[in-house]
């Protein structure tokens, strides 16, 4: 029987990394990012990476790790405001940056995984985002065409996964992870908890195992960007 389970994040990436590769990394801010796989990707030494991720981590954490070592050549993101090293490299022209509206980015990734090479959206019509993109009218309104996105390796963070690769995500740590799982030529997942097949109710599996080629259980720091609380009355 084929085996999807790997012992370490490094082992889970073995043979998959190369210079010039494209990578997707799940997460919104620092919530639901594949921390251990990102660190393992850094340690792989792969250069000139195109990284597709909603954000770029913070200095020294998340994708910030790969920026520090200058392994990223290009980012495709919707918001990158929390990272000084990013800003420095970008302003110095050392880093390429493609902004996508967040919903367009999410849909492009879903489309890529779903075999849809292009779709039309109102988002960005009349803005710089529309520049150079094909447009089409539907019912008298103008829409722009966006393309599907896939990648060489998708790095995904899930809450629980079984040995067949079936996944469940926790709360808002779901975010971009499920779509990215569908859009990788190879999808590698790190989970808080690896469980036996049959542990999940099949009605409530967020990502079916078909999308997952490799899975590893790994402990996460789960850093929080902005702790906001209220006082008990």
């Amino acid at each position, binding site marked *: 029987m084929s085996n999807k389970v790997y012992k370490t994040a490094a082992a889970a990436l073995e043979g998959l990394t190369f210079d010039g590769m494209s990578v997707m990394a799940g997460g*919104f*801010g*620092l*919530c*639901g990012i594949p921390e251990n796989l990102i660190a393992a990707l850094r340690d792989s030494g792969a250069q000139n990476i195109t990284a597709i991720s*909603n954000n770029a981590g913070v200095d020294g954490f998340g994708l910030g790790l790969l920026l520090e070592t200058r392994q990223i050549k290009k980012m495709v*993101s*919707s*918001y*990158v*405001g929390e990272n000084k090293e990013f*800003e420095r490299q*970008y*302003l110095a022209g050392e880093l390429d940056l493609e*902004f996508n*509206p*967040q*919903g*367009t*980015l*999410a*849909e492009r*990734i*879903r489309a890529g995984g779903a075999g849809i090479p292009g779709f039309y*959206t*109102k*988002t*960005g*019509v*009349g*803005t*710089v*985002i529309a520049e150079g993109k094909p447009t089409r009218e539907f019912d008298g309104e103008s829409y722009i065409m966006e393309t599907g996105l896939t990648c060489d390796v998708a790095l995904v963070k899930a*809450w629980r996964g079984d040995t067949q690769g079936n996944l469940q*995500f*926790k*709360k*808002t*740590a*779901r*975010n*971009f*992870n*499920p*779509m990215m799982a569908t859009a990788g030529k190879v999808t590698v997942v790190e989970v808080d908890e690896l469980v036996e097949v049959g542990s999940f109710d099949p009605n409530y599996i*967020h990502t079916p195992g078909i999308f997952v080629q490799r899975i590893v259980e790994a402990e996460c720091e*789960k*850093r*929080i*960007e*902005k*702790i*906001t*609380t*209220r*006082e*008990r009355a």
Partner: protein
Amino acid sequence: MAWSRDDMARRAAQELKDGFYVNLGIGIPTLVANHIPEGVDVTLQSENGMLGMGPFPYPDEVDADLINAGKQTITELRRSSYFNSADSFAMIRGGHIDLSILGAMEVSENGDIANWMIPGKMVKGMGGAMDLVAGVKRCLVTMDHTNRAGASKFLKSCTLPLTGQNCIAMVITDLGVFEREPGRKFRVSELAPDVTLDEVKAKTEADLNWE
């Protein structure tokens, strides 16, 4: 006396109707949640994948896996649901959110909005703002009427790169409330206490319907 940030949020909250699904931007819009009128039940969407956003957690409830689109820790409610980012923006793009309240750097007289980028400064990205203004049924801006230099932010046309075109139905500033029907000019529908129409005219570059 011009409105305070809280006054503006309170006024914006009057646009919430019972049963509405609402997305609130960062800044003044966030304050709107503190002023929801009694008897009005609204569900807040957070575009990172949640409906039914609850208040900030007590210190012992903080959960790294539960944040809002501003990356702040939050809580869930009995009605809450989670979904992925593609589904979240399908909801937004598909016109299922009743109202979005956003901040803005500029609004133009034809309802364009600019709120994501100042050329020459470091660009942080538009996040979900372009999707919100393109998809939500009704978009409302809360902003100061003028910038720190005293120049109007309510313009004939935006000077900054647009977030969206012809998408803002109402602007609430410290000076008053400005509304428009699709294809029509904004008109002054309310003034802050002791603010005169002349003051508004003097501080507004946009060509409004002053009737």
